[in-house]
Structure formats: structure tokens, C-alpha cells
């Protein structure tokens, strides 16, 4: 047999193998490695324009996952990594409370200067205008500046502990839904 032929055979058998795995995953509660399905989280994917859309609501939201804190003037901000930014009024600390939530999917970091919030949505730097609380909106954007994985996929893990379906990193994960999943990826 020529080396070329054996190569084709190897590739073919690999393809078969991957089909077998795929087939198994869908049809049986046990996959080829003997892993069973458990209740966990499956990623929800979105198209880029939807995934990167900024929105503000003055209805405070419960925190999904928790991230960095930031203080600016009489406000406190807390990142909800992957989902957005919680805004707190801290004018009188004893009465401090959440006042709203900025949806910034794929966010991981925050910094503020001159009433502009600098954050990231996946790999974009996003500048939000914060000068009018009732109208926090996207001011500008520098697309694709953060080339590295951690900025691209801060939402690549569900906000809760447990098993989840390992996401496809070339797509935009916009959220997570409870489902039965194989025991591959685990969030601590």
C-alpha cells in the first residue's frame, strides 16, 4: 500500500470515529468515553450584531456571576462577567442601592473617566456615555482590539457551578440554558 493511501484510510477512519461520537452524543445517555449525562448548562449562541448590542434598564437585575467593582463619583459599578454592569447609587452609603443594569454581553472589565464607561464586549472596546443616567448608551466602539481568548469569551462559562456543554469558541455565546449535558466542561 502506498503511503498516500494509508493516509487516506487513517483520515477516513478518523472521520468515522468522530461520526460515531457525534451519533452517540445525541442518541444515548452515555458517550464513547463512558460519560453519562447530567443536568447542566448548554450555551445559547447569537449573531454578532445582537450579541454586541448595548442596552440599559433602570430595573435592577439579580447578579448572575460576580466580578470587579468600580467607584466613580457617587456611583458603584459591579461587573457581571459576560452579561453586563450593575449600577449602584452610593450618594448616601447607608441607603446605597442598585439602580439599574447595562447589558454588555461578553464584558470582563471596566474603567471610567469623564462620564464615559470603558468596557469590553467580547473583543471590542466599548465606550458608554454615562452623563445622563436615564439614557446610558453606546458612544463609540473600537472593534476587535482585544485579540486574546479571555476577552473574546468571558461568557464562555455559565454563571453557575456545575457541568456544561463546552461551547464553540468561534461563535458568540449570549447566555446559558439548563439542559442535560455530558460531563466534559466543569465550572467551579
Amino acid at each position: 500500500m502506498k503511503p498516500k493511501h494509508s493516509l487516506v484510510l487513517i483520515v477516513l477512519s478518523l472521520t468515522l470515529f468522530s461520526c460515531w461520537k457525534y451519533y452517540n452524543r445525541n442518541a444515548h445517555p452515555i458517550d464513547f468515553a463512558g460519560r453519562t449525562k447530567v443536568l447542566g448548562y448548554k450555551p445559547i449562541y447569537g449573531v454578532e450584531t445582537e450579541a454586541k448590542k448595548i442596552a440599559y434598564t433602570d430595573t435592577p437585575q439579580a447578579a448572575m456571576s460576580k466580578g470587579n467593582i468600580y467607584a466613580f463619583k457617587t456611583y458603584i459599578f459591579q461587573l457581571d462577567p459576560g452579561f453586563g454592569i450593575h449600577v449602584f447609587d452610593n450618594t448616601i452609603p447607608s441607603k446605597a442601592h442598585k439602580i439599574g443594569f447595562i447589558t454588555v454581553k461578553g464584558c470582563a472589565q471596566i474603567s471610567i473617566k469623564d462620564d464615559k464607561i470603558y468596557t469590553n464586549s467580547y473583543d471590542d472596546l466599548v465606550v458608554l456615555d454615562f452623563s445622563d443616567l436615564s439614557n446610558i448608551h453606546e458612544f463609540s466602539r473600537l472593534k476587535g482590539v482585544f485579540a486574546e481568548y479571555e476577552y473574546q469569551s468571558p461568557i464562555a462559562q455559565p454563571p453557575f457551578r456545575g457541568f456544561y456543554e463546552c461551547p464553540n469558541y468561534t461563535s458568540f455565546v449570549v447566555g446559558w440554558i439548563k439542559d442535560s449535558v455530558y460531563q466534559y466542561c466543569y465550572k467551579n
Partner: protein
Amino acid sequence: MRVFIHFTGIIFIASLFSCEKTASDSASAAAPSNTGVGGSLTKFTIIGNYIYAVSSYTLYTIDVSNPAKPVNIGRTPLGFDIETIYPYKNRLFIGSRTGLYIYSIDTASAPRLLGQARHGRSCDPVVANDTVSYSTLRSSTTCGAAPSGLYIYNIKNLDQLELKKTISINDPIGLGMIDSALYVCCQNEGLKVFSIKDAYNPVEMQTLSNSDFIDVIPYHDVLICWVRKGVSLYDISNRLKPVFVKTIEN
């Protein structure tokens, strides 16, 4: 009598000085007042017209002098497993899993390495001023094996950062300093309050153990704390005796 007048004069001058120190230090984590203050676990910071952002391997520099049109200036390759960035004056303190790096931003668009201290593999956020830096190293499974604790460096000589002292603490994480107080978050072991009147020899004053503390921002007279349950606020008008104000739950 003359001695007394002199003494009063000295006290008066000292108090002026301490006021000035308070004012500048409360904003120490971010020099100008039009910029906010981040916690110690951040990877984003703004100094002047630039955003400095770290990822695991890179320092990004972005010019935001015109916020309507941010400009990507470039990327500086860093070591490995970069964790945090802390601004102080014209310096960036970068904490990584293998050491502490100090960069000059005298040329704001081109950060330059001034000094570094290597340590065993561990996670380490950092706070600092002109003469001293405090890092917490935590050696959990994901972080590495170096002994957990508070690491105090003399940073007067940037060519050779000198490890002055280590204080053993289990899994410390975020930290914050203001005036003569240093707050160290110890997760489920609470928040440790140190007096840093003697900068290289912090003295533990008390531990607040009613929450899981992750990170803190000393912000004027309020200590803003990221705790497991949400965001807690403490009055720190007496720096070494935080008084609980409230928790805003998740």
C-alpha cells in the same frame, strides 16, 4: 513656652501635611479626580488619555484622548499569566502568576519595564506607592504552589526590588490601601485590617469575619467591598476601625 509653641507649630504643619496626604491617597488608585477607582483585581485602568489593559500575555495601550474615536496604539508582550494591573502616578504595577512587574509610562504611549520581582507560581494582585508594594499570593490549585500570604517589597530601588517581609495568610485575594491602613481580603476567613504606619512591617489590627471578602476599594471614607453575597459598605473615617454600614445583596 517656646517649646510648646514650636510643638504646636509642628503639629499644625504635620496636620496640614496629613490632610494633603489623605486627599491624594484617597484617589491613589487613580490619579486625577475625573477618573474613577477600581478594585485590585482589575485588568483595565485609565491614566491620562490612555487605557492600559492586560490580558494573560499582553499589555494593550489604547489612546482615548478623543472618546468618540479610541485608537489602538499597540501591544506590549508581557510575561505569563498576567492577572492584574494597578496604576500609581506614572507607573503600572502588573501582577502575574510568576512575579511583579513595574512599568513606566513616562512616555504614555510606550510603557517601559522598570523593575521586576519573580516569585514562585501563585496569583497576586498588588497595590503600591512610591516606596512599598503589597502583593497577596494565594496558592490554590489553579494558581500555583508558592506559599500563600502578604508579600511586602521595598520598591525604592527598581533595579532590585527587595522582599522585606512575608506574612502568612490562607488564600488572600484582593487588597486595598489608604493612608496608614491596608485591607486584605481573605475570602471566607474575612477581611484583615493592617496598620502600615511602618510600611514594611504591617501590624494586624483586626479581622472582620462576617462575610466572604473578595476585593475592596477604599473610596474616601467608605470601604466598598465585593463580598460573596453582594456589595458591602464600611465606614472607614477611622481607617483602622471599619464600621459596617450595609450590604446590598445580589
